[in-house]
């Protein structure tokens, strides 16, 4: 029994890591969507976190715990700096600005020789693993559920439904938007650091526009009624290509079809249930 489990783990190790990391990324985009904003910058924040953590462990031999902390703080700081001017934008304009941010960081890593330039950074020590990934995910899930069931959760949902009315109810809109972006970027940064330390290699093109859209689709598929919904979405989107592997050549077609059908027939996500907002 134990042996079978061990076998399973070694066979699907990278998939198990990806499910956890993607779930954290899904939660990070959920935090922004939950206040009614649209960000396509999550991949960039993930990249900044991945490079911060990997550079610290590879070049300086910093302990993993400290590297994790730094990989949360650096993207958070970036979000704080970028957030001031960009959060005056809303909706699709904010999305465009965050795409710009993503491209800037990608090109920066591409040309930064110290961090390996276009070749990326290799030889990253294996740290954290399943325990760190799923531990972080559990802490975030519990934390976000508690936040949802409080005055902050009520304010967030109110903002998403009708921002002007939420402001008249006394919600400090600029502050909520900024804090949501900062928290979400810290979460994406941690996800980047965790994934870098289980894959031994990172490159600048892993954190481009495509990754940003994939992260957004986790929350679109799952829904944002509760923190559990985006996690379900990311898990399905991560596992689906593997489950469909026997379909061989039709795999990607069926994969795409399932996503399109889900979005068409379940516009509120596959888990539309909304969490109660009282503590």
């Amino acid at each position: 029994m134990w042996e079978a489990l061990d076998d399973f783990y070694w066979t699907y190790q990278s998939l198990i890591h990806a499910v956890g990391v993607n779930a954290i990324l899904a939660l990070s985009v959920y935090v922004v969507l939950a206040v009614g904003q649209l960000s396509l910058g999550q991949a960039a924040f993930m990249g900044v976190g991945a490079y911060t953590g990997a550079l610290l462990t590879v070049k300086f031999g910093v302990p993993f715990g400290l590297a994790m902390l730094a990989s949360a703080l650096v993207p958070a700081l970036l979000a704080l700096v970028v957030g001031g001017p960009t959060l005056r934008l809303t909706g699709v304009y904010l999305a465009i600005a965050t795409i710009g941010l993503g491209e800037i960081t990608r090109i920066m890593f591409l040309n930064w020789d110290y961090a390996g330039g276009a070749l990326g950074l290799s030889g990253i020590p294996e740290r954290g693993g399943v325990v760190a990934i799923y531990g972080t995910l559990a802490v975030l899930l519990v934390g976000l559920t508690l936040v949802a069931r409080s005055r902050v959760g009520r304010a967030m949902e109110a903002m998403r439904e009708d921002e002007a009315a939420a402001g008249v109810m006394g919600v400090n809109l600029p502050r909520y938007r900024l804090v949501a972006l900062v928290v979400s970027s810290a979460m994406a940064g941690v996800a980047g650091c965790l994934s870098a330390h289980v894959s031994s290699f990172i490159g600048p093109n892993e954190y481009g526009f495509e990754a940003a859209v994939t992260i957004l689709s986790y929350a679109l598929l799952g829904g944002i009624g509760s923190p559990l919904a985006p996690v379900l979405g990311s898990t399905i989107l991560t596992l689906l290509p593997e489950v469909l592997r026997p379909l061989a050549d039709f795999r990607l077609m069926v994969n795409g079809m399932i996503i399109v059908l889900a979005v068409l027939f379940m516009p509120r996500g596959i888990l539309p249930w909304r969490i109660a907002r009282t503590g």
Partner: protein
Amino acid sequence: MIPLPPTQPAPALTVQGLTRRFQGLVAVDSVDFTVRQGTVHGLIGPNGAGKTTLFNLVSGVLAPSAGSVRLGERALDGLSPYRRTALGLARTFQNIRIFSEMTVLENVMTGMHTRLTASWGILLRGPGFRAEERQAKAKARDLLAFVGLSEAADTRAGDLPYGDQRRLEIARALACEPRLVLLDEPAAGMNPAETHALLGLLSRLRDERGLTLLLVEHDMPLVMSLCDRLTVLNFGRRIADGTPAEVRAHPAVIEAYLGTGGHEVSVSRGLGS
């Protein structure tokens, strides 16, 4: 103007020289008026007179081109809507703007946002947090009972009938413990029975809770029987100010509502009595 005797409390709201231009159009043109403590003050005027713009200026949704607004002694100029709410200003909207996905109770609790203080307690769930949340819930239920929506506490707000949604908006506005409530056409779209119930509710707000109300309303019988004082706007300017009886007899008001040459007899009927 006769100077106010020193014992007179400060007006609940003072609007001075308030102006808002939209490119060429002057929607609100140097309007002055005061709202006395504990009264219901009506803001009336034909369509397009600038009433809703004035509300948006007072609640901070729009910034004025000139002029000032004071809540009690406190100047509100330049403050965001949420700061004004914290200082005791609440409002409802002309087109209902409840949070329709949330439950009725959650809507009212959202209105308490500025009165709740939980921060780290949200994550730690200590006794302080739980007590605050429990009290907030109890208070929200009281407010729902006050407006007659007790039964609907756990209903999705968007599923309420129209008149109930209006009452929910009032309960939500009361939840922030305001000193002054701005009501933008609270009777719009209501049938006579609902309007009558609303009249009773708004009188109780003034008489039992000592609240000051400023309302925009087109339903003249409601305005005339409820309001203590009226300010009349036309084309963004204040054209009259006074008790309902004074306003009804004011020549500029008669002209604004009926055009020149209107007969006073039909005016009294038109404005209700």
